[in-house]
Every structure is written in C-alpha cells, then in structure tokens.
C-alpha cells in the first residue's frame, strides 16, 4: 500500500499522528528550545540570499505536506526574507502518503512540491512527476549528512525515522533486545502488545525478524514474514497508527512496535519506557521535499529548500515536530531532549543497523496483498 509511517487514521476528522505530535510539541514539549531559537525566528543568514543571477524569486508555491509538519516560524521567516515569494501548504487530510503520487499525477497543476519518502519519490520517478533541482541554488544541502543525501536524491531530505521497539521496563521483567525477543515473549504478554498499523513498517519488521531485507521481493521470504505476523496476531491488542507511545506511557500495553520519535516523546511522560533498536536491524523511512515536474515556481521552491536547510531554520523544524533529524549541522540549535535522545541521535552505529524502505515497483502489489491477508487472518 505504500503507506509510510505517516498514514493517518482513516476517518475524516480524526487526529493524525503527526498532528498530535505537532500539537504536543506546540503545547510545550518543544518550548525549551524555542527560547534558543529566538535569533533564528526573526532573521536569516547570508546563505539565504536570493540567487543573484535571475533576481529574487516571486510567486507562491503550493507544498503538499503533512499538517503541522513544518517549523513553527519557517514559512513566515522565509516570506520575510524573500518579499514576493510565498509558500502555501496543502494537506490531503486523511489520505495516506501512499496517495501522494496518484493525487499529484491527477492534479499536476495544483501542487508545486510535496513531502514524500524514498518509496514516494521512487513512485514519483516511475510516474514522471518529479522535477530535478538545480543544486547550485541549494548550497545548504551540504548541511545534510552524506548518508541521507546520497539516499535521497530527488529532493531535499528533511527527516527520517526508524521502526523499533518500545517497552515498559517496570511491566516487562525480561530484557528485550531483538525482534526475536518480542516474538518469543508475545505469549507471556498476550494482549499487552501493540504493532504499527502501517504495512511497510510492520512487514519490514517481520522481515528483519526472519533475517531478510525490508525491500525483498522474494515471495518465499514475504510468506515467512506473513506467517510470523499471523502467528503473533492473536497476542496483539491492536494495530495502531497514532498515539502508540502515549498508550505505552499510560500502561495500556507493555510492549510496542513504534517509531523512534514517538517513543522519545513518550519517554518524557514515563521514564520507564525503553527504546530498542532490534539487533536484527530496523526498517526506516527517509523523507523530504521534492518539486513537481514543470512547476512554474521552481525558483521559489529552490530558494525555500535552501532556506529550510539553514541550521537554525532546520532546528526550528526539528524542535516543532520532534523528529529524528538528518543534519548534524543543526544540532547546536536543537533542543537537548531531542538532540541527545538515544532514540533520535544520528550516529554511524545506529545508521548501520537500519534499512531504508525503497520503492518496490510492481512488487508493491505483493506487499498490499500480504497486508490484507494479515489483516484478514
């Protein structure tokens, strides 16, 4: 289904995972960082100057983005720094990220840019909806760590996330270090385990448990992952796509398959929550902004992308959303609760143990079917 870790709960009007996160962040979790951002909020550095060759960019670009998935001051600061240029954010509401490409394809003139992960940009390339960028106009791309830059080439990387395990050390007596530990402990903690309700993350985790790539197209390996998921399903309390960490903090369940940043957020509410990057490895997403093919606002977008990657502006984005970040250059401006959290920290050992979800082309259908089989079992 290409649902990436940002699929909202389906009903219209339901609060989305990221919306919740953003609201939580706005309600105070990221507040300590905002003071440090004072300088960044009202000014921009020299690297944000408009390109001199063709004059300042003018116009308003429409960015298809998740609600609240932007620095608190980023757009206002950009529009202040670039008079005449603007960013208008649009959201697909309850629609998952898997719908981004079909939506853009059907409305090519409506959107100028979008947020999407590697699977989305892979889809976008296949559907011919992505506009290559002029990297000479985005010098701040140097601030993004090489690993992310080389993995996300069709736009600017903005954030990434890992699917690991969070558990309550006061409710689970055994240590959990791997997916195998989780599967083995499932009968003992039956009904106290929650998995993510996102196909690629859930299937990817089962694939890592069985020792396979999260991007496999081998049907036999996929079948083994399906069987593993079906085996553990009777012990799952629910599959959830939002507020997973909150339930863990409240004790609604003891073990959860969850995203790094959600666990990091929940740890602030309950110190008994432990984050585990499973020893078999974890499935991960890497996402960013890309331009839509033939957009007339390409200059505005390139200026905005460059502005977004300024360390202070990027820190505003991270502090607002609480996401795992892709630019160590911004670390000095990022709230310490985020920058120093083991779940979110960017280090080579962690990155060596994660595998990014790629676009699977025709094989996507096999994942869609497998997911429905699991849900129906």
């Amino acid at each position: 289904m290409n649902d990436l870790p940002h699929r909202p709960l389906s009903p219209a009007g339901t609060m989305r995972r990221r919306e919740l996160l953003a609201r939580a962040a706005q309600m105070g979790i990221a507040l300590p960082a905002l003071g440090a951002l004072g300088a960044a909020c009202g000014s921009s550095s020299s690297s944000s100057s408009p390109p001199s060759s063709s004059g300042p960019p003018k116009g308003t670009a429409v960015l298809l983005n998740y609600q609240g998935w932007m620095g608190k001051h980023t757009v206002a600061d950009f529009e202040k720094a670039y008079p005449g240029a603007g960013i208008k954010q649009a959201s697909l509401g309850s629609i998952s990220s898997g719908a981004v490409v079909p939506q853009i394809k059907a409305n090519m003139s409506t959107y100028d840019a979008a947020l999407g992960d590697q699977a989305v940009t892979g889809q976008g390339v296949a559907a011919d909806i992505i506009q290559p960028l002029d990297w000479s106009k985005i010098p701040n791309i140097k601030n993004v760590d090489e690993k992310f830059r080389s993995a996300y080439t069709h736009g600017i990387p903005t954030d990434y996330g890992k699917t690991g395990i969070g558990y309550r050390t006061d409710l689970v007596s055994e240590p959990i270090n791997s997916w195998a530990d989780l599967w083995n402990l499932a009968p003992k903690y039956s009904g106290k385990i929650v998995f993510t309700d996102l196909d690629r993350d859930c299937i990817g985790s089962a694939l890592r448990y069985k020792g396979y790539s999260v991007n496999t197209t081998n049907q036999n390996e996929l079948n083994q992952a399906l069987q593993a998921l079906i085996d553990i399903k009777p012990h799952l309390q629910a599959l959830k796509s939002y507020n997973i960490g909150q339930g863990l903090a409240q004790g609604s369940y003891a073990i959860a398959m969850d995203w790094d940043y959600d666990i990091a957020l929940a740890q602030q509410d309950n110190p008994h929550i432990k984050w585990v990057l499973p020893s078999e490895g974890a499935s991960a997403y890497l996402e960013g902004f890309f331009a839509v093919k033939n957009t007339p606002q390409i200059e505005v977008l390139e200026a905005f992308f460059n502005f977004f990657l300024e360390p202070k502006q990027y820190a505003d984005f991270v502090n607002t959303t609480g996401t795992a970040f892709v630019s160590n250059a911004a670390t000095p401006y990022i709230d310490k609760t985020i920058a120093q959290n083991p779940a979110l920290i960017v280090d080579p050992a962690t990155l060596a143990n994660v595998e990014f979800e790629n676009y699977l082309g025709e094989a996507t259908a096999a994942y869609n079917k497998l997911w429905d089989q699991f849900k129906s079992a």
Partner: protein
Amino acid sequence: MMRYAGQALRSLLALPTLAWMLLFFLIPLGLVVVYSFATISLVTYNISFGWTLSNYRQIHDPLYFNTLTRSIFLSISATLGCLLLGFPLAYFISRQPSRWQKLLLVLVIVPFWTSFIVRTYAIVNLIDNGGPLQHFLHALHVLSGPLNILYTPKGIALGIVYSYLPLMVLPIYVSLERIDYNLVDAANDLGANPRRTFRRVTLPLAMPGVVVGCIIVGIPALGEYVIPEILGGGKTLMLGNVITDQFLSVGDYPFGSAIAVALMVVMALALIVFRLTQRRAAPS
C-alpha cells in the same frame, strides 16, 4: 393555462435540487461505475478506460469475498442488535404521555449533537479493559475478569449498535405512535393474549417503521469503515476499509470502484428481496 404555469413554477423550484443531485451524486456515481471497468498501472498511475471485468474478478479472491461476507454478517448482527434494543425503547416512548414523549425523543437524539468521531472515541474509553463498562459488569457480578471486547469484532458491533440506535428508534416510534390502540383493545377483548396481540396486531402495524429502520441502519453499517478502524484496532478487515485503502492508500481507483459498485449491487439486491417479500406478505 394557469395550471400549466403553476406546474412549470413547481418544476423550477425543484431545479436547484435536481442540478445538485446530478452534479454531486449521479455524475460521481457514474464515474465510479466507469472507473470500475478501467485498468490502472500502479507504476505510472496511467488509467486506461475500457470494459474489463478484471476488477470484478478480483473480488472473487477468497480474501475479499470473505471480507464481504464478514461485513454482511456484521451489518446484519448490528441491525438485529439495534432492532432488539430499539423496538422496546420506541414502544416505551410511544406509550408515554405526549410531553414525556418529546423529552424522551430529545434524549434519543442528544448523541447526534456530538461529533460522530468523538462519540466513537468515547466508546474506546467506555469499553476498554478497566473502563466504566467493566466496572459496571463487575458490580453486577456478571463478569469477573477483563472485558476484552475493545479491538474485537464484538467491539465493532457494539459501536455500530450504539451509533445507529437512534436511526432505528425514530422510524419505529413513528409507526407505533400512529397505531390506533383501539385495535389492540379489540384483540384483547376477543381473547388474544398479550403475546398474540403483539404478534398479530402491534408488530404488523409497526412493520413499516421496522423496515425503514433496518434499511437506514443496515445499509450504512455494511460500508462502515470509521467504527471498524477505531474500535477494531486495525485487526478486522471490513469491506469499507478495503475500499478506503484502495482509494487513499494503494491508488488503485478501478479496483476500489469495483468493490464499491459490488457493495451497492448487494445493497440494491437486499432491498429488492426485502420489497418482494413484503409484497408477498401483504395480501395475507
């Protein structure tokens, strides 16, 4: 002449509604039907319109066929649940003095004043293990352990019954309220016991309300996807969720359209069968 002018004016008054229905109901419905016969490349998202039945053949896959069966079963269960709870309530209300009836009807409608989503999330807290319903059942000594109905098909059925109950109560109440209770008295005078009076007099006269209630509860319940998503914990695949996924996640509009059309056909067939059985029953 004047009569024709009056008719023309009345037709004009209907024009905005007809235009609205045409634009926002019939044309989109036609598009869904057309899409259901099309094919899409899930790589390029290019759609080829044609008259292929391949999307409909996919529904025969046991995976989706079982999902359809599960949805029908759940819809019937929830409708019966609404009927079993709604009929006595509607009967009770209809037998109250007029001013009390109004108050009780307002109480039935009160839940609609709150957002549907909020109400469904409220049920999560009500039926969760350790929640008020569990405490209540423990107090009554009906239950001793955990409730264990949240994130199960039972939880979904309970949520549908709760959400749709007013839609069952109101039409039944209207039918019951119109009954001439002299007929009930006559049946009693002629020696019928209360059970027989109910079966032979009250129930047949309330039948139009029961039918309407079953239709307006059963049909939306069949395609329901919000309640299964929230109260099913994502573990129970319903047809409404499959359609949603095909449109909003997979991007396979033709297959999603085919399931939607198939669901509409099932509903239409159910209505036709219902209607036919009613007609056959009517002369007797």
